[in-house]
């Protein structure tokens, strides 16, 4: 029934690959462009899938926290929640502030003066994110070898200015953005 050689698929492929010159260049250009479009399409499709895991609009718009600080006596600490994290507010005693100011810079792993960590004029108030900079545990107050904070997870010691003094943590406790709204009120964030 078949009167002629119909093995077209093989010959077709050979013809295709043996094509050369201008025609071949044009064809290659077409193939490359098409493939590039495919790559762009895949990339564009992946981005929404990745970005959806970033904080959403409601998390970004999370309200700042306002705290009444009038009730914090000298030597006392309170912990408030800001963006789901604990924030330590410590009304330091004068002795603690003096001790912090007396530390020479070369003893510090992450050198920062006490003045850089508290607001001038209200330097008794120390406001820090209560998260150990090592692996995220919450350090204990009034503990450790430097009279400040001590992280029980892996033994990081912080001084009375919340600076890292000994242990695996690389950085001082983080100071969040904050401002004093009035004598008695503080807004974090």
């Amino acid at each position, binding site marked *: 029934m078949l009167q002629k050689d119909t093995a*077209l*698929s093989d*010959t*077709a492929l050979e*013809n*295709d690959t043996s094509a050369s010159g201008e025609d071949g260049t044009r*064809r290659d250009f*077409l*193939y490359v*462009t*098409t493939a590039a*479009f*495919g790559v*762009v*399409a895949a990339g*564009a499709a992946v981005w929404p899938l990745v970005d959806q895991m970033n904080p959403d*609009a*409601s998390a970004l*718009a*999370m*309200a700042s926290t306002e705290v*009444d600080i009038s*009730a914090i006596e000298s030597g006392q600490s309170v912990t408030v929640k800001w963006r789901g994290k604990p924030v330590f507010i410590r009304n330091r005693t004068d002795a603690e502030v003096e001790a912090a100011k007396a530390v020479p810079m070369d003893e510090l792993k992450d050198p920062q003066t006490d003045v850089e960590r508290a607001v001038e004029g209200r330097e008794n108030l120390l406001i820090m994110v209560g998260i150990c900079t090592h692996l995220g545990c919450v350090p204990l107050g009034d503990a450790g070898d430097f009279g400040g904070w001590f992280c029980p997870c892996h033994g990081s010691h912080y001084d009375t200015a919340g600076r890292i003094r000994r242990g695996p943590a690389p950085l001082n406790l983080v100071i969040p953005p904050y401002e004093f709204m009035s004598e008695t009120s503080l807004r974090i964030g």
Partner: protein
Amino acid sequence: MRFKDNTMTTFLTKTVATATLIVGMAFSGAAIAASELHVEEQDWSFAGPFGKFDQAQLQRGFQIYTENCSACHSLNLLSFRNLMQEGGPGFSEAEVRAIAAEVSVLDGPDSDGEMFDRPGRLADRFPSPWANEEQGRASNNGAYPPDFSLLAKARAATRGFPTFVFDIFTQYQESGPDYIYGLLTGYSADVPADVEMLPGLNYNPHYISGVQIAMAPPLSADQHEYSDGSPQTVDQYARDVAAFMMWAAEPHLVERKAMGFRVLIFLLIFAGLLYLTKRKVFASVKH
């Protein structure tokens, strides 16, 4: 070969026609379910492939909502911060802060365990006029004023065959605002003789569930003062608040349509390239 192509073309033509019909069925079903209501199509700035919300209109609509509708209708899914997001009414952050601060929000408990009131902030939701649905019903003769957050998408008019097929190509998606506009401007004092009005209800032939609606005509001319010189008519008020409700129901509409245009252009070029590639690949093969 001739033979095969013929059947294939037939198959494809008929398949496409079939698919279109089946898709259409969806809407016919949906629309009929909503009601046998017909509404007049209005011109909206946000219709069509390049549709955008008119910021001034949304601001006016928001004004109508706050001055008028918000006395009975909640807007539970929206926060004040939404008012300044892209594609919306375009208020500045300072303006929105001021709007929010006028509202008192129940917060707490404080360190003494007491709840307290404070001025609203950007992240707060719009306050509901009712503590709960029961209170809303009790204050309105048993009819709960529906929440506005999604109303523009939760109402639709009957389109019917073959209109709903054309809708696929004309991108008609404004049934909700058309309905809201129709309802707000549709009140009539001329009650037909065959309609026996129940006490406390108002005649409105544009209402989705019957012609008697519990809501009294909410708008009247010159009731609200527009600062931008727009006409202070019931028609304009209704149009503005319907647009605002469409934005509230679909806040990403502008972004969606803009992205859609880019995606479609890209896909069409990509399809063209693939078609040419396919032709090259099959150039020397009979199939």
